[in-house]
């Protein structure tokens, strides 16, 4: 079957591509032609989409997702996570290794790959940096890489000690794979929210911003010393952003991502002890959010990633102090980025694409899809101007822990195309 995308705008900054009001012909999972289509081109069985005013861009990529499989299939599975990703506009994601058991062996990698095989969204895997994420012995990184792992992390916690971090960076450095760090000093961790006037008012145990910054500092120094690649996951404080900015100026191989909640929410939202505002790192202050936005603008922060963290209602509907950290984000991420960054003129559409399509793949050494004749069609269809209301009831994710329910957003992914499959406005078919 032929797929015809009519009257679309195409953008891919990676190729320096920017065209308006053109047509794309797809067939056999590939891009067959771009431009004027002849009657011969459109002959036969076909499906046409008029996409006037919409954009076709290379498929979005989320480099920080918790798929919960194996271990917590009641919260999310590889399949529901992929469906959530497709619904949210992502043709690729990288899943984190804090599963049960952790992704520290080729067996777990192949289990996840097997589950993901028939999904539209490509699943890339981050392996544990240490065995069982315990921070004691580095994981079999070479074997994990051989089985397809694209980076290493003990996400959920930072790599426990400087000596293990050094070893992990040296070892992963052989293969040019990044270490992705959840930056939090273990001895200062354990609080329920950011230390500040709000934690005092709410009587919640605080975690100070310096808990993150200590490890960001440690990791940057270690990256410089080992000449390894460090990626700071979910950066959230002013000082962390400043340190990364400085490190980049010194030529240290450091990259950083931020979550939509850390650029769109502050700890002022926790007033009612709603556990959907409990995450780690915690929501910070306005000064932190302002610096994060500045960091997005000036390129200090390379990517936007969701830290999609599904939790069951039983786990989340409890006392704030006892609730687990994290929220789901795959299906609100593009909307939040467009609403908070594109429409507020922080980032251009090209810059959004850099941070949500190109840079995450580059950090993980994954080729960026091209929009060009003969290439595999790996695309996201975007309407940056559609106004819509988030409705958790329509989510494809198995979990519902999001603070963004009923929020009005401007901009949405209408559909995704990958591996000869299309998911467009609730319709799902192969071509």
């Amino acid at each position, binding site marked *: 079957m032929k797929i015809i995308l009519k009257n679309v705008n195409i953008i891919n900054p990676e190729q320096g591509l920017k065209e308006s009001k053109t047509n794309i012909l797809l067939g056999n999972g590939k891009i067959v032609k771009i431009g004027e289509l002849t009657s011969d081109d459109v002959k036969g069985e076909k499906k046409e989409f008029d996409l006037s005013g919409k954009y076709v861009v290379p498929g979005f990529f989320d480099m920080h997702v918790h798929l919960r499989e194996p271990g917590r299939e009641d919260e999310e599975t590889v399949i529901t996570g992929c469906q959530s990703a497709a619904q949210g506009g992502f043709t690729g994601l990288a899943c984190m290794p804090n599963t049960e058991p952790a992704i520290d062996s080729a067996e777990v990698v192949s289990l996840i790959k097997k589950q993901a095989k028939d999904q539209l969204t490509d699943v890339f895997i981050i392996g544990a940096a240490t065995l069982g994420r315990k921070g004691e012995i580095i994981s079999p990184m070479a074997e994990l890489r051989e089985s397809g792992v694209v980076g290493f992390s003990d996400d959920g916690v930072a790599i426990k000690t400087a000596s293990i971090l050094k070893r992990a960076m040296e070892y992963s450095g052989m293969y040019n794979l990044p270490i992705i760090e959840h930056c939090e000093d273990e001895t200062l961790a354990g609080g329920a929210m950011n230390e500040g*006037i709000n934690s005092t*008012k709410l009587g919640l145990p605080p975690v100070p911003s310096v808990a993150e910054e200590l490890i960001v500092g440690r990791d940057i120094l270690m990256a410089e010393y080992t000449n390894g690649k460090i990626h700071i996951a979910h950066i959230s404080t002013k000082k962390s952003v400043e340190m990364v900015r400085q490190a980049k100026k010194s030529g240290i191989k450091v990259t950083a991502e931020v979550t939509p909640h850390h650029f769109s929410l502050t700890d002022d939202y926790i007033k009612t*002890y709603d556990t959907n505002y409990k995450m780690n790192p915690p929501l910070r202050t306005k000064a932190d959010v302002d610096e994060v936005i500045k960091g997005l603008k000036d390129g200090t922060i390379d990517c936007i990633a969701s830290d999609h963290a599904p939790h069951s209602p039983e786990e989340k509907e*409890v006392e*704030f*102090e006892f609730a687990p950290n994290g929220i789901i984000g795959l299906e609100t991420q593009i909307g939040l980025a467009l609403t908070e960054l594109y429409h507020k003129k922080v980032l251009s559409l090209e810059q959004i694409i850099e941070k949500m399509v190109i840079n995450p793949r580059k950090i993980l050494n994954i080729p960026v899809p091209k929009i060009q004749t003969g290439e595999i069609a790996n695309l996201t269809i975007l309407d940056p101007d559609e106004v819509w209301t988030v409705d958790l009831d329509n989510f494809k994710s198995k979990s519902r822990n999001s603070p963004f329910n009923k929020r009005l957003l401007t901009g949405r992914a209408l559909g995704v195309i990958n591996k000869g499959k299309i998911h467009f406005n609730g319709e799902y078919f192969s071509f």
Partner: protein
Amino acid sequence: MPLSNKHLLGLQGIPKEDIQLILDTTKTFREVLDRPIKKVPTLQGKTVVNLFFENSTRTRISFELAEKRLSADAVNFSVSTSSVSKGETFKDTIRNIEAMKVDMVVARHSAAGTPLFLTQICDASIINAGDGIHEHPTQALLDMYSIKEKLGKIEGLKVCIVGDIAHSRVALSNIYGLITMGAKVSVCGPSTMIPRYIQDLGVDVIYNIDEAIQENDVLNVLRIQLERKAREYFPSIREYAKFFGITEERLEKNGKDILILHPGPINRGVELSSSVADGLNQIILQQVTNGVAVRMAVLYLLGTMN
């Protein structure tokens, strides 16, 4: 004039008129407690559940007594939070209690915010009897009542809260209540026990206990909770007693009459020297009696709102 809210979750944001009404009503009930028959029929037919997820014999007995003096049907429900699935226990318990058609719930919990959580899943009036390190409004109300009883007013007084401010629910409720009632509030204690941003609440921070004694009309001395984690926040009990303990010599040296409150039980030789504690026995016991009267006032005002 009724209270403006059917729950008492804390003193943050509670209007002055409400606090005044509670304190005035307390006075009436305080008199009831001096009668030979200390019981009134005010809450006859109302059911109150004392829902304690954390051990607290004193507060629970004080509430229970207040409920009985008002002729309410009081039920005690103590649940341990140390069981594995803390959250499930809490929500399931609330559902059970809701099904029992109770009018009021007095809740004590080790986690902040649980009284608010209760209001969202249960129709009864909720009274916070202490939530984590957040608030303990009836304790602050009884402290304020005791101050007023001794000094005739609250407005314009200088009150210093001494001790572990960071891990105290009593401190926060006192700060909110006293500021609302027009007192000038400060806190004094080791810096590790003072929240980093406490000044944003409009209180001064003092690290010198002599200065605290000199500059204030009232000291509200908190119990150092030696059995809790708080113990890790200062080097030794000896050092605490030496630099923050209130002794007779200190009081004499500063040569002034100062009202000292303590929510009890006292760690003798730690926050108060034994002789100071002995001298205070009378007011500390009065605080306990006032506690029953304050809780009667709160139960009465909330229980008769509709």
